[in-house]
């Protein structure tokens, strides 16, 4: 009798472990299924592709993770990204074209620096509105959504900012390792004297974008998990009153959170310029911010705040990305991805309801 009860408890516990890491389990299951249904799914090149294409989604989800843990929401990330991409593109375009004297490197570095500073502004404004003037996060960032979108469209005049130096995509779409039997390994580019036509003979490992993304995600993970800043973020979302009473400057912290979110969105814009070689504004139907929120929620966060992690959100993004990629490779209509993500979201929340935190 006693032992059977212990068994059920143990069984329940095993079940709830699965339930708590269901996103990771789903990810594994998807990978297994698509390996059978999709030709060329289970290949390193495809996996690298998924991550390369998912870079922006990962950054967005990281930005959203911090905000959602404080109990807020940032609807502006998608358009802040567009704003930053367009602005960076415009600066490079102007400098690059203006004088033969400006080398591409100088133009790019100036643009990156300028955009990183500029991208703090939308977050600063929404943060101040939310923290100091009690504007609901949804409204403040929806306002920013409109404003940054309008500015991005104005700067680009409704067209992508093109005619940028090639070096951008060389970096953005390059790999860390290039490898061919006989030639050996070279770093960050084809070996000297090998033409672009033979690029297919090389095994390319670790996209540059993945390297940079890894560094950024690692820093953000550390920030959220191992620092007082991260601890306070959870505290603000868990119980704001308690946070105030324990001496945390909650208003200041919330401003910082939205600045951080907008900064990460700015970084995503820079990634976008490097990967596509043009400055893109964000189209209306892109819904980066909503997919980011979806990934964060799938990754175990609650919109009420106090819960969530960078790793969880990362898994959430991968789950969506592999689902889309797997469906595509398996020959399923791309439009099913919207439906699939919708269903995934519902599953996420329902599982979360069924298994409250008792571990």
């Amino acid at each position, binding site marked *: 009798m006693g032992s059977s009860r212990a068994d059920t408890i143990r069984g329940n516990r095993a079940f709830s472990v699965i339930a708590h890491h269901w996103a990771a389990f789903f990810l594994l299951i998807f990978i297994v299924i698509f390996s059978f249904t999709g030709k060329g799914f289970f290949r390193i090149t495809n996996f690298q592709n998924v991550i390369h294409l998912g870079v922006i989604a990962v950054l967005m989800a990281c930005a959203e993770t911090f905000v959602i843990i404080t109990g807020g929401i940032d609807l502006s990330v998608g358009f802040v990204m567009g704003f930053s991409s367009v602005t960076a593109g415009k600066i490079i375009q102007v400098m690059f074209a203006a004088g033969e004297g400006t080398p591409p490197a100088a133009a790019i570095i100036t643009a990156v620096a300028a955009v990183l500073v500029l991208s703090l502004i939308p977050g600063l404004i929404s943060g101040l*509105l939310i923290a100091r003037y009690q*504007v609901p996060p949804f409204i403040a960032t929806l306002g920013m959504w*409109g*404003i940054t979108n309008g500015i991005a469209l104005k700067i680009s005049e409704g067209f992508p900012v093109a005619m940028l130096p090639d070096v951008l995509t060389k970096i953005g779409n390059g790999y860390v390792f290039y490898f061919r039997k006989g030639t050996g390994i070279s770093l960050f580019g084809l070996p000297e004297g090998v033409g672009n036509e033979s690029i297919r003979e090389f095994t390319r490992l670790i996209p540059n974008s993945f390297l940079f993304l890894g560094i950024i995600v690692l820093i953000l993970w550390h920030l959220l998990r191992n620092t007082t800043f991260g601890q306070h973020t959870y505290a603000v979302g868990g119980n704001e009153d308690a946070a105030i009473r324990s001496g945390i400057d909650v208003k200041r912290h919330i401003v910082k959170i939205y600045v951080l979110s907008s900064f990460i969105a700015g970084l995503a814009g820079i990634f976008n310029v490097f990967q596509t070689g043009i400055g893109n504004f964000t189209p209306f139907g892109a819904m980066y911010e909503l997919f980011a929120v979806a990934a964060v929620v799938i990754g175990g966060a609650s919109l009420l705040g106090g819960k969530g992690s960078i790793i969880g959100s990362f898994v959430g993004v991968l789950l969506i990305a592999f689902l889309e990629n797997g469906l595509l490779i398996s020959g399923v209509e791309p439009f099913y991805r919207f439906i699939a993500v919708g269903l995934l979201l519902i599953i996420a*929340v329902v599982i979360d309801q069924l298994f409250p935190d008792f571990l």
Partner: protein
Amino acid sequence: MKTNLLRNKNLLLEIGRRWALIFLFAEIVFFGLSAKGFFSIRVFQMVLFFGTTVFLLGTAELFVIITGGIDLSVGYLMGFSSIVSTKIIFALTESGMGDGISLLLGIVLTLLIGLIPGLVSGLMVAKLKVPPFIATFAMLGISHGVSELLIKEGAAKNLPHLANAIGNGYVFYWSSGVGFSMFNRPQVARGVFVLELIPNIVVIAFAAIGILAFLLKRTVFGQHTYAIGGNVDSAVRSGINVDRHLVKIYMLSSFLAAISGIIYMLMYVTGKADAGASSLLDSIAAVVIGGASLSGGKGTVWRTILGGVIIAILETGMRLMGIPTFDKYIMVGIILISAVLIDQLFPDRTYTDKEES
């Protein structure tokens, strides 16, 4: 002296609470001075004509927002309904049915189908306790995907001419010589002036909005909507079936999105998946400019329409002045945020009954 001060303060408060009206007035004066041909019946009708989407979706959003929720899916449900109605009507006319009856039947069926997404998100919100943001975003994804799949089998068009006649027609026409006529544009030679009054779709939209305004303001249903947004616990303890009511609210919202999808179909004689994709900002802005609060319990239909008119005039005025629509997004964003800030300055009105003091 003191009473004077108090009266002045009250007067200021009363004016402040009507800031949206003052803003609207200022907007009209501004465009009247700077946009050529702004003061004309044609422009006025244009505002209402292109404003129908934001009026309807704003009203849909209003009901949800009063209960303390949010509906992200209205824009894509509008696109979904525009496609569904086009497909059904096309199929019916193909099968040999008359134009009029196909149109009517197609619209009725679309309205019925339009209830389903709301039923699903409502059940998720009420029974499964899924946050409205997530439930309606899931619904957004699903409706978007289904819309694209429907279009993939062939573009959503080939509607009978009658659809265009209704969608771009007017209730009254007048031209010299022919005089007044209703619904039918008089057959006159090219270049002869015809006065067109009241677009048909504006009548349809405002009929729906009028009914909803009545529902919210005057009925038990409306009262319970406010009560749920004000304090869910008290609503439950007062015996209101909150779950059921919430399901109804989300169904109402998707029903309104279906109406605006049908109107889109009539106006543009086609269906598009992203017909309402950009209207999320506009519709929520209209509600918030109209004084509603995202924490629920506040807001009225007419003030939401006022918010919608402000946005529609902004759009039309800028178009007349040749300003790119990019600036509209910036302006709406700024007005949206300002609305919340201004409302904080002017607390709710309090009454004192004379007979009791």
